[in-house]
């Protein structure tokens, strides 16, 4: 592999790290935000899943939303690959790829809902 190709691969890896950083930031922010909100002490918790703590909700979302999460990562990877040909900055590629991945998954979800 030549010099230019190697630096291009390094930049692609950096942009993926930036994209993963965005996912971690958003998930952590939602978790921290939800943890800071006091809940009513006298809730009826007799039904299953009626009183989940935010940590448990995240675990449930990761398990149930696994296919969506995989779709997000794959589409982010593909958008990053396309953008890497146009843009040089890894930060911009990673950020736009995260947004693009979310948009791709949202459109795919809407189409799937419409077809069903």
């Amino acid at each position, binding site marked *: 592999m030549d010099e230019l190709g190697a630096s291009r691969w390094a930049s692609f890896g950096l942009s993926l790290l930036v994209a993963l*950083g965005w996912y971690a*930031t958003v998930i*952590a*922010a939602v978790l921290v935000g939800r943890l800071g909100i*006091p809940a009513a002490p006298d809730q009826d918790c007799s039904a299953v899943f009626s009183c989940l703590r935010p940590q448990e909700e995240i675990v449930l979302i990761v398990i149930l939303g696994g296919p969506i999460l995989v779709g997000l990562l794959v589409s982010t990877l593909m958008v990053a690959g396309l953008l890497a040909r146009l843009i040089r900055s890894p930060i911009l590629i990673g950020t736009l790829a995260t947004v693009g991945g979310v948009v791709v998954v949202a459109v795919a979800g809407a189409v799937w809902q419409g077809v069903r």
Partner: protein
Amino acid sequence: MKRIGLGVLLFAWLYGVPFLLIVGLIRRTSSPYLATRAAAQAFGASTDTILVTVLVLNLALPLAGVLIALLVRDRYWTRRFVWSLVGMALIYFAFAIVGSVARTPLIGWTPADQEPAPRVTRCMPRSGGRGCPGG
């Protein structure tokens, strides 16, 4: 060393400001259970602090980055921080959109509390008012 410091500054802005913005907006749009009026005011005050911190850091971090990068004559980071000013404008734009959608102001809001209204326990006779029972 200098590049590491500027990189930390840039990533603190890139991830820190959206992190605090999401935390603040979740607190602002939630309906928390707050037993007393004082607790509701404290909750509203800390939400305000988070949102004001977002607005201040979003201005301070990119501008500080541009200034420091210019002072140390680092062209690589100057270019990055000048581009971060576009991101700064986008974050302010997002904040303004959320603020225009909300019915009450984003900053300076106190959530509802569960404190019961004070019960009337004593009857004060007043001229022109209704008479007190038993007297």
